[in-house]
């Protein structure tokens, strides 16, 4: 007889690794093989968790079809199971998993479509915080400016891809008005993911503004973000981009170097 903790570890191995050697002998068969009984719980776990991934990665699911998606999602669940019951936060690693998933290798853009969907999902579940007004900058000395870092809206996201993932995503929507065919060689995108009320959207940004905002979102100082932007686009206009950041209502907090 297994102690409860060992029994639960053995059951976990049966569910996630398909290894029922330790658990099957202690299951009452009663007309069904032990493995058939265990398979009911196993399939409940894998199918329901894959379905939760399917809610987040709906475009990926439509691009590859239901059977392919379920197969990939269930493999992901077994390899990287959730650590708690809050499945809204589960699945961050699925895009990287897809990138290395051999059967999907021909779909070179798939992982980036998934990265866009994860960003859209994060934007949908994030809290909102009141935007900072530009007058908060008024008391700062010019010498303090380069070292400033900003907290931006919690739902804000940035994604760059060598593939036109925005148009692929749009084309994959049910009843889509997007392009039925997307030319993969039509170039990459730099996207900003935003939320208006409860509605999540995205839009393309020019290279300089994208690099500037993405760097700030990652916690770079104003100076480092400006350098990144100039590196990405020679014609980057810092003063204009900085003012536009506030006009768009994105900063929610300012941190000096000592508190950053």
């Amino acid at each position: 007889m297994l102690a409860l903790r060992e029994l639960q570890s053995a059951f976990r191995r049966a569910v996630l690794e398909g290894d029922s050697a330790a658990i099957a002998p202690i299951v009452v068969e009663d007309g069904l093989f032990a493995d058939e009984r265990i398979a009911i719980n196993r399939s409940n776990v894998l199918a329901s968790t894959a379905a939760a991934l399917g809610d987040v990665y709906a475009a990926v699911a439509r691009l590859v079809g239901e059977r392919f998606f379920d197969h990939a999602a269930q493999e992901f669940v077994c390899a990287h199971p959730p650590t708690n019951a809050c499945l809204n936060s589960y699945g961050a690693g699925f895009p990287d998993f897809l990138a290395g998933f051999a059967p999907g290798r021909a779909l070179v853009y798939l992982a980036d479509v998934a990265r866009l969907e994860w960003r859209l999902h994060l934007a949908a579940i994030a809290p909102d915080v009141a935007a900072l007004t530009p007058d908060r900058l008024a008391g700062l000395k010019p010498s303090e400016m380069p070292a400033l870092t900003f907290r931006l809206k919690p739902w804000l996201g940035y994604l760059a891809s060598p593939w036109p993932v925005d148009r692929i995503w749009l084309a994959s929507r049910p009843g889509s008005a997007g392009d039925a065919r997307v030319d993969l060689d039509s170039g990459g995108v730099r996207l900003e993911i935003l939320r208006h009320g409860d509605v999540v959207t995205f839009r393309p940004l020019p290279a300089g503004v994208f690099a500037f905002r993405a760097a700030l979102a990652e916690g770079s100082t104003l100076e480092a973000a400006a350098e990144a932007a100039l590196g990405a686009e020679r014609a980057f206009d810092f003063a204009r981009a900085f003012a536009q950041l506030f006009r768009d209502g994105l900063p929610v907090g300012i941190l000096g170097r000592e508190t950053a």
Partner: protein
Amino acid sequence: MAYAWAMVGTMGRGDASARAPESARFGLGLRAPHMADFLAGRPAVGWIEVHPENYLDNAPARARLLDLRRDYPLSLHCVGLSLGSADGLEPEHLASLRALADESEPFLVSGHLAWNTSGGVYMNDLLPLPYTEESLAVVIRNVAAAQEALGRRLLIENPSTYLRFRHSTVPEPEFIVEVARRTGAGLLCDVNNIYVTCANFDFDPVVYLDWLPAELVGELHVAGHFRGARGGRPLLIDDHASPVSNEVWALYRRAVGRFGLVPSLVEWDRNLPPLPTLLAEVLIAERMAARGQIEAEDLRARSPASAGGSRAGAS
């Protein structure tokens, strides 16, 4: 351990929110796809029940839930507590649940006689326990800890199961009643789960139901199940994907006859129909409950001395 709830009861939250409002008789399990309909139409159901795990890390959904809470009594039906886990409960998860409960003031909070965490991994199903003295000690410890962390009494729901362990020694209804008695918790009697489990193991669901003491039952659930067969025997799966079956309604009528008009809930989780179909199920529950009361009175009138239980059979 036996006095755990008595202790929690003195922890000082106002009792008003914890008591079932008079209107809270027939409720609906609210799922995300119907949230917009609920917000727009505020349909006439007595109360709503949600899985709190869906609202802990989703700020906009939580705000919508709190908005609805102004118009409906709320029940938090936890699916990830893992009350049967030998590893114990997760303090962080309990703290998040406590914060949501303090904000939303549910009149009921419930969990399952099951487990779903092991070795830091969460498995999204209600997994079966061996019914042993060791498990009993684990579940009692976890239920007491959950009640203390949440500052509220829990209702424990009987699970649907598809397998039993060879070393189980305690019949399931005896096990769950013992947990409730020793922790001060109540019971959430899921009539569909009784039906499914008993069908799968060839036990009499009426005997199971009659084993549960009326004073412990604080809520009833009904739901649909899938009826399959394996090797010439029925194999029922609790999938919450279809209307409540006639057999489960019959058992529900008996439950209302025994337990009275405790809050009753219709659950439907997969293949979700449009909201009006679910609201119609709730109306059926209301009619079935009325019939159940009449049938119970008839039964009592015919055989006044027939009360009293035999030993429960399902394990």
